[in-house]
Each structure stands twice: as C-alpha cells, then as structure tokens.
C-alpha cells in the first residue's frame, strides 16, 4: 500500500503517502474502494509537502536547521516518517466496477487504500482494439508491461504529433511506420524533409532496416540513397493552379491570371507559362493581363521548372505509382531532404491532392471504397500548411469521409488554425515547453487533459500522452525505441494484404 485517500471532490482526489516514498507526476495509481467494490484509477497531477502539526512548526524547524548549519552543529530529526509526509493530488480517471471501466462519476470511499497499479489492473486496456502499436503504458517514469497503441481506423480522423525538439518525434514516427508496415492495412505517406527516416541517424536505425521493409516500404527520393528506392519525379502537367497557391502568395490579379492560364491551356498551363515569352502571353490574352503580372508568374514557374523533381514529360511521374503503393497498404517514404522548402511543399501538396482526389472519386462506388485502406499523410512542420486554407486544410476538414487522414507534426500547434486543429482526433503529446502550445492542445484534445499540464511540462524524451476518442483517459505512454521494436519483426516475411485491384 502506498497511502490513503484524504478527500476533496470528484475532479480532484487527494491522498497522503509516506515521507520516504517517491511518487512521480503522471503516475497512475489505484484506489481500492472495498466498500463499493470499485477500483479507481488516479493520475498524479501534483505533489505537495505535508507535516503533522502547524505550518509554524515547519518554519521554526527550518530556522533551527539553518542556525545549526551556520554554527556547524550536528542535529538530527527523529520520527520523520511520523512527522512528515507527502500529499499527492490526483485527477480521477475512472473506475472499474463489474469488470467495466466507467467515467469518474463517483468518488472512492473515505480513506480508501491507494497503491501503485499493477499489470492485472490494466486488463481493461487490452480490450482497446488498437492495431498500431506505439509503446507501453507509462506510470510516471516507469514503464508498465502493457502495450498501447491506436486503432488504425482512427488515422483518417487525423493525428497530431506535438513536441519540442529532441522529445522523440522522429522515433515515434518510425515506430508508427514500423507498426503500419507490420499491419499492412493502411497506406502511410511520409514526406521527409530532413532525410531522417530512411537511413536513421548515427545511433538509430531507419525504416530501411525494418525486417519487412523489402515488401512493405517504398521509397522515393530525388537523390541517390544507399538502398533500393525510386526517383522522385513529378510531371509539370500534373501541377495545378491550386497547388501553387498552397506554396506561394499571389495578388488577386496574379490569381486571375493563373486561372486564365489554366483555363486556356489546361494541364499545359505551367509549361506554357514557363516557355512562352511575356509579350506572347500578353497577346494571347488580348492584353487584358499586364506583362508585369506574367513576369512575376513566370519567375515562379521558372523556379518550379528548374527543380530537379519536376519533369516536362507528362508520362514521367511517380504520383500514380505512389497512389498504388498506398492502396496496397504500404508505407511510402518520400525523401525530400536537400530540396528547397517550396519543392518539398510542392511535392507534398501534389501528392496530398492526388490522394484526396483519388479517394473522392472512389467514394462513388461504396463497395469498392469499402475495400480501400485508410491513408495517412504525414507532414512535418505542419503549421506551415495549416495556418490557412489549402489542400491540407481541406483534408483536415473532409478527409475522414474519404479515408484520408493527415498526420500533422509540429513544435508549434498554436500556429495551426484552431478550427483545423479541432478536426484532429488523435493527439500524441510529447512534451511542450510553451504555455500557448499547451493551452491550444488542451482546448482541442478529445479527452480532458486540463489537469495534466504539469505532466506535459515534465515529459521526458520518448514519453507521451495519447488522446483519442474512445480511450478511457489520456493514456501515458513510453514510446518504443525503434531499434529495439523492429527486432520483433525479424523473420516475419509477411506478405502485404491484397486489395481488389480490379476496382482500380
């Protein structure tokens, strides 16, 4: 036994525990309400000092200690365990009655025993029905031997991964990808602007080291990689005016000109804008558009056409094969490292639009659509594309209907439009130093995490809180270490799940 409940209310339970015990913020404890046969789950949200006797005694004793320290006089304090104690402040998570987990609508009996939860207590979590394994349950700093993850069906309801640098975002994504590969039931598109997922780092392995990478991972990159990969090429003919608006700002006149170009030249608009002389373009549009407007647009077009990932040949494009890979439930890694930001964004925008557009079309045939795997598109520094409207905002709003989810990875969730953030059902919170970021997460999470602010502040690298609809509470997790986790798949030459190709 760790302690006994003292009291307070349905949203905050206080217990006393011994002076010598070390309880950590975030620990999950249980209160045994023997009188009502309930087992309450409590999350430690704050810790306080306690002492028998008045507050004055504490002041006086500290003063005596300081005096004796100054005089270098020895002293002792006997009966510490009886005089001193600690107080744990807990948020009630819920309780188990008759084997069923219930929301915390009752409080434990007075002076109920409080103890640390053991594996047996977490049986109800095994019924969670998740299939994307992420890590193990965490209680404070300790790992509990209970695996945790999310239900893959939630990926189309969007995922947010929020963490400051060094808290383990990349490891989490690698683990997520590893589980997705093992599952083979979901398409996962990872746009990797930092080149950290393929090879890994100096001390970590990459996705290519996953034992199932041979048939579950497909890699696209504009530059040479050490292992099997495809060259990333996007045809200039598949870039739309809308795509460009996702990455550049345009004046109203420029926008009008872009739509005029698109209307006049169709899918050749970008190539023609690039190839035609300014004067030619002005004449083409009956001099209704000024040459200065075309000058600006042409400079943008030149930047795009100069990009090593853009090809003038309509038939040289990998987007179709990426779509097919995703339909096959594969993990598709698009390594955009070394590219300019606008190139990386352009690749992401074109691919995201194609995926959404494809699934929207497929939606018309319900039966075939039913066989389509959910696809998750991950976007690093997602605040760049979720500040305003665009394809990613569109996916956030309507993607779930078409089985297209967005995984927004960001250090600054406060920069994401609040209305868009509210569309994200699953949060992985890995430690956020900024109060503004924590506040926006608190107000958007699908579980009440208002009491766990201190825990979020004190999360260590690799520790997370996971919230999603249907979770009994915000689940504290220790994310698997990728290098160790993939050892579980050694020797598993699993064939990918087959989908109804006839449909496509």
């Amino acid at each position: 036994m760790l302690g006994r409940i003292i009291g307070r209310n349905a949203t905050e339970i206080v217990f006393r525990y011994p002076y010598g015990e070390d309880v950590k913020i975030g620990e999950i404890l249980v209160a045994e309400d023997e009188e009502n046969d309930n087992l309450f789950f409590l999350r430690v949200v704050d810790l306080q000092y306690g002492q028998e006797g008045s507050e004055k005694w504490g002041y006086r004793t500290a003063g005596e200690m300081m005096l004796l320290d100054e005089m270098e006089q020895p002293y002792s304090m006997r009966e510490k365990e009886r005089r001193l104690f600690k107080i744990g402040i807990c948020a009630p998570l819920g309780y188990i009655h008759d084997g069923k987990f219930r929301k915390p609508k009752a409080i434990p009996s007075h002076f109920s025993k409080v103890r640390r939860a053991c594996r047996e207590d977490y049986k109800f979590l095994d019924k969670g029905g998740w299939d994307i394994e992420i890590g193990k349950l965490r209680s404070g700093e300790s790992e509990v031997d209970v695996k945790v993850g999310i239900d893959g069906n939630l990926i189309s309801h969007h995922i947010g991964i929020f963490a400051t640098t060094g808290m383990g975002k990349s490891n989490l994504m690698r683990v997520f990808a590893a589980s997705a590969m093992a599952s083979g039931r979901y398409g996962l598109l990872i746009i990797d602007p930092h080149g950290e997922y393929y090879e890994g780092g100096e001390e970590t392995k990459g996705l290519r080291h996953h034992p199932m990478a041979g048939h579950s991972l497909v890699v696209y990159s504009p530059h040479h990689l050490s292992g099997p990969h495809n060259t990333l090429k996007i045809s200039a003919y598949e870039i739309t005016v809308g795509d460009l608006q996702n990455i550049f700002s345009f004046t109203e006149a420029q926008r009008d000109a872009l739509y005029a170009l698109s209307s006049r030249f169709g899918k050749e608009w970008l190539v023609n804008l690039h190839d035609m002389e300014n004067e030619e373009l002005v004449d083409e549009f009956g001099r209704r558009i000024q040459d200065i407007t075309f000058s600006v647009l042409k400079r943008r077009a030149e930047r795009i056409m100069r990009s090593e990932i853009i090809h003038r040949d309509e038939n040289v494009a990998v987007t179709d094969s990426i779509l097919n890979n995703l339909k096959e439930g594969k993990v598709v890694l698009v390594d955009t490292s070394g590219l300019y930001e606008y190139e990386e964004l352009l690749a992401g925008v074109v691919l995201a639009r194609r995926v959404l557009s494809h699934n929207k079309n497929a939606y018309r045939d319900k039966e075939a659509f039913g066989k389509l795997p959910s696809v998750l598109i991950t976007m690093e520094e997602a605040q760049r594309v979720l500040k305003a409207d665009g394809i990613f905002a569109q996916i956030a709003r309507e993607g779930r209907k078409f089985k297209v989810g967005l995984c927004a990875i960001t250090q600054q969730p406060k920069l994401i439009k609040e209305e868009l953030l509210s569309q994200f059902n699953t949060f992985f919170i890995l430690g956020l130093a900024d109060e503004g970021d924590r506040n926006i997460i608190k107000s958007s999470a699908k579980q009440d995490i208002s009491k766990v602010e201190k825990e979020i502040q004190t999360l260590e690298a690799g520790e997370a809180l996971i919230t999603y609809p249907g979770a009994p509470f915000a689940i504290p997790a220790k994310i698997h270490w990728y290098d160790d986790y993939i050892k579980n798949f050694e020797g598993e030459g699993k064939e990918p799940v087959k989908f109804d190709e006839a449909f496509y």
Partner: protein
Amino acid sequence: MDKKTFGRAFDYIKDAIEKSRYFEGEAEIGLEEGEFVAHLHESKFKKFEGKSKAKGAAIDGSSLKILDGHFFIIGSRRVGYVIADENGITDRRIWNTDMEALSKYDAKEAFKEKYENFMQNPPPKIPESVEEANDAIRGLEEHAAAREAMGKLGEGDIIMMDGSLQGSEYLSDVIEENCRIALEKGLHLVGVCKRSDLYTKKLPVLSWVKRRGDKIFGKERWYYPLSEEKGIYIAKFHPVSKFSFRVDINPMEKDVEEIMGKIAVFSNDVSYLGYPYPLAVIHREVVLTSEDGMYFRRVLREMALKSGYTIDDWEELFFDYHEYLG
C-alpha cells in the same frame, strides 16, 4: 486615557524589570503545593556537556472530560511510553483509550481502588472532585507505565516523566516508590516540564533564570539548581535552544551533571531543539484532543439513540447541549 490609567500597570512592569536585574539572595519560589525559599547566586549556574549516547524511556498520559452530567462525568484517559536511544525510538507501548463514568459518589472509590491495586496501600489523599479523580487516575496510570518501562531499561538509563515530580499530593507515595525502585536499579527518574508555574512574587522563574544563564554561558548547555533539596533544576539542554525547562530529579541522585548530559542526548532533534524528543513523541501519541472528545461524544450519543432512548432523554442528562454540539 491618561497617565493615571496606565500608571499602576506600568509601575508593576517597571518593578518586575528592576527585580529581574538582580539574581542574588533569597527568593520565594511558588509551587503548586506551596512556596519554598531559593538561595540565588550566579555562581550556582553550571555548564555541562552532552553525552554521546543514552537510552531512556519517556512516559506521558492524557485525560479528557467527554461529557459532564454535573454529578458525574464521562472521562477518558490514554497513557503510554516510548523507549529511545540517541538514534531514535526503539520500542513503544500505547495503552488503549480508557473511558470511565465517574460520579461524585464513586470517583473517590475508583481512585482508591486503582491506587491500592497498584501500591497495595491506601493513598495519602483522595481527590475531592470527579475531574481531579480522573486526572489523578491518569497520573497513577502514568507511573504504572513508568514502572513497566523500568523493566525494559538497564543501569544508567533514564526515565523521563512528563511533568513535575513534586506537584501531585495524591501520588506523592507513588512517585517516591518509583524513585526508590529506579534508584535501586541504577535508573535515573526525572520529570521534565513543558510548562512551569514556578514563579516569584513578580517574575516567571523559567525565563528569568534562562536569561541569566544565557548571559553567563552564551551558547552552551547549563543548569541551575533551584532547590537541590527538592531536586528542582532549570536546565538548557541544547546550546542554541530558545527554551529552558524545569527538571525534577530524584533528590537522592548523586551525579546531576551526568543525568543532564544524558537528557541532552535526546534534546538535539531539530523539531524540538532543547527538549527531549522521546517526550515530544509520546505526547503526540497519547494526547486526547478536542476532536477525540467530539468523536467519543457522538459515538456515545449514537449508542443511546440506537438503544431506543430519545434525544430528549439525552439532553435531560447532559442539558448543556452546546457542549456536545460544539
């Protein structure tokens, strides 16, 4: 208000301050049971060193009037002791809280019976009121607890009673007997008073002596023999203690400095600097608080109601119902 209004009060204060400047000559010291004359002189202050090791027992008790039925009371008592050494508490025994109805007619008999059971002799004096009887029984139980604790101690160990060894006219024989047994076993029986009513005509003795002792020795341990004949001392057990205490020592003891040194071993706990920590511990263990009293009252009343009596019956008996409501 004018000078005349404050005049007499200020004159008293002035006189007390003036008196406190002189620490010499005869002073009449008041005790509960009477006065005695102390011969004061600064040369009698003695500095002493604390020992490094000691073993001892601390005994304390608590009594509480739970209900007052005017011609009877429901009283409760709890006593206990701890055995300690320089490192901490090694043993403890706390008796269950005892509850007893003591009426005007049987309180004396109750005390007498308990006394005779313990001493095999009649008491020198019997308390008149029921409250006094309850307190005297508690005192008796404390000395019985001390007797038991003696069995767990060896030669040179110390027995610390909470309170004076002088005050109780009902228990003087018991104290004397315990002092005798302790002496036979080579144990040192002392009484340490948290508060002391020692007074002179104008001054509280403890603070007067403390100020003088600190003036002479500064940050040192010292004691002052107020009456070697009665075994009454004032002592400061820790060099930087803000407090000094009245300590009663068996007048038959030869080496007072040795005893003071041993008490000092227990007086370096920073929670109660200068006061023997086993006494503080046992006090906390046995004390009956007003909350305890409220709880006992409620339980008794519930028992009455569950037995079919009405609240009117109850209030008739304890008509000052504010007490149990409070």
